[in-house]
């Protein structure tokens, strides 16, 4: 699918992108000899594809295959060593891990997150109740985020980020920590965003999630784009491997 499809509006063009990491290592190798002080890791090798509006793209691959590196490069957080990435809007990324501002309450994080994304005060206050309901946090919303479990944090972040319609949204494993109910709700919201002409990248190890929400799958292995196509065949090939 590297060849542009006529009649569809592209949202992300990834053009021969390679990413090399220069990792500082210790001065001495394990056998006591002097090893080179930096090692070059090729995290991505010559990856090209075009994503379109109304695309919901699953990204699969084993751990360390370069999925997250690709996503971070699309958002602009990881510099590319070669090639270029073009997008119709600034992509946003939802990742797992740290909360937004952990010393502040969930409620304060909703307001700040909304303002940071460019909402006005009125808009974020109007959306506030929906966000709280969607996150399912209830009374916990008044507690500092450092007291939240990883699932709660991910739910709140997802709720804040998707309160706004994004042209390009990247969801990196963020759904994996939620419970079943939340996963269903968030999958429905992902489909909504896709239907509103958005483009979504969903990095996941859950093939069910990907089959339920995606119309296209990228399979990345050892930094190379192995397959790019319909979810069914790509996931089948991935499982047989």
């Amino acid at each position, binding site marked *: 699918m590297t060849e542009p499809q006529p009649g569809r509006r592209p949202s992300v063009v990834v053009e021969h992108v390679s990413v090399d990491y220069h990792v500082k290592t210790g001065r001495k190798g394990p056998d006591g000899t002097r090893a080179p002080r930096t090692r070059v890791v090729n995290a991505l090798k010559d990856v090209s594809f075009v994503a379109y509006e109304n695309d919901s793209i699953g990204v699969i691959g084993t751990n360390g295959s370069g999925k997250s590196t690709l996503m971070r490069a699309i958002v602009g957080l990881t510099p590319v060593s070669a090639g270029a990435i*073009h997008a119709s809007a600034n992509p946003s990324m939802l990742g797992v*891990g740290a909360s937004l501002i952990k010393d*502040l309450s969930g409620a304060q994080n909703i307001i700040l997150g909304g303002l940071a994304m*460019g909402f006005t005060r009125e808009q974020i206050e109007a959306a506030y109740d929906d966000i709280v309901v969607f996150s399912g946090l209830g009374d916990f919303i008044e507690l500092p985020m450092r007291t939240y479990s990883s699932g709660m944090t991910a739910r709140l972040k997802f709720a804040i*980020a998707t309160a706004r319609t994004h042209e390009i949204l990247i969801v990196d494993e963020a759904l994996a920590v939620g419970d079943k109910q939340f996963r269903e709700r968030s999958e429905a919201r992902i489909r909504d965003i896709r239907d509103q002409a958005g483009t979504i990248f969903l990095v996941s190890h859950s093939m069910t999630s990907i089959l339920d929400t995606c119309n296209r799958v990228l399979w990345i292995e050892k930094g190379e784009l192995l397959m790019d196509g319909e979810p069914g065949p790509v996931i089948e090939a991935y499982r047989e491997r």
Partner: protein
Amino acid sequence: MNLAAYAEQHGLGRVGARPPLGAYLRETWNRREFMWLLALYRVRADNQRNQLGLAWVVLRPVINAVVYGTVFGLIMGGAKPDRFIEFLIVGVFFFEFFSRTFTSGAKSITSNRALVQSLRFPRIVLPMARVLEELVLFMPTLAVLLIFVTVKGNTPQWHWLLIVPLVLLYTMFNVGLTLITSRLSVHLSDLSEILPFISRLLFFSTGIFFDLSSRFEGNEVALRILDFQPLHELLTLARGLLLDGQYTVDNPWYWLYFAVWSLVLFVVGIVFFWQAEERYGRD
């Protein structure tokens, strides 16, 4: 078909490219409410964690002043400047705003990685909010300072109002410095270890607890250099304003010098920080 040409044909821009300065500043201005609330929430959160809460904002510099006052009061014996206590309090209280932003503001990008990586907004908001937070904390300190100075027998006068532009310049000075240090510590993570020493060095060389102009009396070169030390200018101006003619500023040019320092640092800081906008949030 060439992908780059295809992207251009559909009006797609390169990801992560930094916006031109004008657009960047407009976007920052649109996030002013974010900046303000971030500062305010942080002040509240910090205070909720201690039993005494907001009282620490004032207690901290008071304790500082008591410690330094006792130590240096004893060491220096008869060499103390006139009205030593007020002299010291003005110095310590004013310096606190600088030293707190200087040492912690540098980490405003590196300590907010989660926020920087998940949401897109002009990063300059973070260091600016940090300075704003310290400015909010400086307000009660300043109030206590004014009350204290009055109690010690300095009558409030109209020219005390000049404190407002002075604090404004001082804030711009701190914003400029923080923008520079917060970008530098992204490139050089060791910097945050060094800054406290620089701050300490400035504390001892700025004349917080001794009068620099009488210390270097007769040494023209040293006095000339001091004229251009921004924190010395600041403290001289503050003392001149608040302490009843005791420390009148014999060099009114200090207003100009300090204003130039502040404006130049402010502008240089913004440009310097903006130049690395694409770099923030990367490891």
